[in-house]
């Protein structure tokens, strides 16, 4: 199944809004693919989150499907919702990052990273992480990407545990800001 362009997507959505279930299923299928590549590129370090975000954005698209204006590009509408959900998630994450320990299960991460496009997306986020200052970058790399505990990271980097937590918290905020800027 090839991915339809703007015109094809729009036609499917307009049919769906008029009550065509099959068109809607096809529309959501294509939207899922677009959302997946959008989120994998942006939250590559958290592959589990990418699929959660795909579903969350899809649910938002479903709930707000009445908000599409037919004279507007479908893709502009889709990506505005996708971006809103991404910022929401990053904000929630940065608010909790200092409290919540990483809970990425290794199995899921290993499976996901076996796909080439995920690897590529992971490199994109790593490149963005590399631009952060050390006090943000090291805590994020060790805790969020390598999966070390806060205490281990503190020992490894010589930072205090609270500095590591603050670094994650503020670093993710900064990362969210930069991801937003580059989107």
């Amino acid at each position, binding site marked *: 199944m090839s991915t339809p362009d703007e015109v094809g997507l729009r036609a499917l959505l307009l049919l*769906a*809004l*008029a*009550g*065509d*279930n*099959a068109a*809607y*299923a096809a529309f*959501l*299928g294509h939207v*899922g693919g677009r959302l*997946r590549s959008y989120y994998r590129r942006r939250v590559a370090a958290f592959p589990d989150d990418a*699929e959660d975000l*795909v*579903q969350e954005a*899809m*649910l*938002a698209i*479903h*709930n*707000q*499907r*009445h*908000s*599409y*204006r*037919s004279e*507007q*590009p479908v893709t*502009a*509408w*889709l*990506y*505005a*919702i996708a*971006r*809103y959900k991404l910022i*929401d998630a990053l904000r929630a994450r940065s608010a909790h990052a200092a409290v919540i320990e990483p809970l990425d299960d290794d199995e899921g991460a290993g499976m996901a990273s076996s796909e080439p496009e995920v690897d590529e997306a992971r490199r994109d986020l790593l490149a963005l992480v590399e631009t952060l200052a050390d006090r943000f970058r090291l805590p994020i790399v060790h805790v969020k990407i390598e999966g070390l505990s806060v205490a281990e990271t503190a020992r490894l980097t010589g930072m205090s545990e609270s500095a590591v937590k603050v670094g994650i918290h503020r670093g993710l905020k900064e990362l969210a800001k930069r991801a937003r800027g580059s989107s």
Partner: protein
Amino acid sequence: MRTEELVAMLARGPVAADIHTTERCLGMAAAAGAGVAALSAFAILGVRPDLAWMLQHPAFWIKLAFPATLALAAFAASCRMARPGARLGVTRVALVGPIVVVLVVAWLALLSASPGERIALVAGHTALECVVSVGLLALPVFAAAFVALRRLAPTRPRAAGALAGLLGGGIAATVYAFHCDEMQAPFVAVWYSLGMSIPVLIGATLGPRLLRWA
């Protein structure tokens, strides 16, 4: 749940949607809020006794048209901001136009007045009452528009909040014009604008916090 299962589930139910939901929700909010604002204004402040005379006076219509056109522009712009990815477009002109017109009219009025009268033309004698009343009368529409926007999909919550504030302020000032006995354009340009800017600022502040949707 796997994403394919989610797609199947969502596509199974009724999928048709009313594409005018945005206008309907915000329209009902504006109408209900305007009703409450008008009833409160007429009950508490009252209407000018010389309304019949006033209706024939062009100055009254300028005073009425300024906030009313701003409210209409704010409504159109809010509807756009309630939809993901939509741009303000031509509504920008509608938002700026009334302000420019009233400033020009006020400026001309000040130029044609003698220097001694100018302060009085701006200051009037009910400035504080005007600002406070417009700020308070904006509340019903403001609150109703926020409730409506939370059900819609504003992706720029600060702009959406500010526009909900302008919608409330515009309607409030329109209602207040029936009570206000100041007829001079400079007064309207300064104090009506100030009154309307209160809900705009509050809306811009509260928007990012309150206008979350799923």
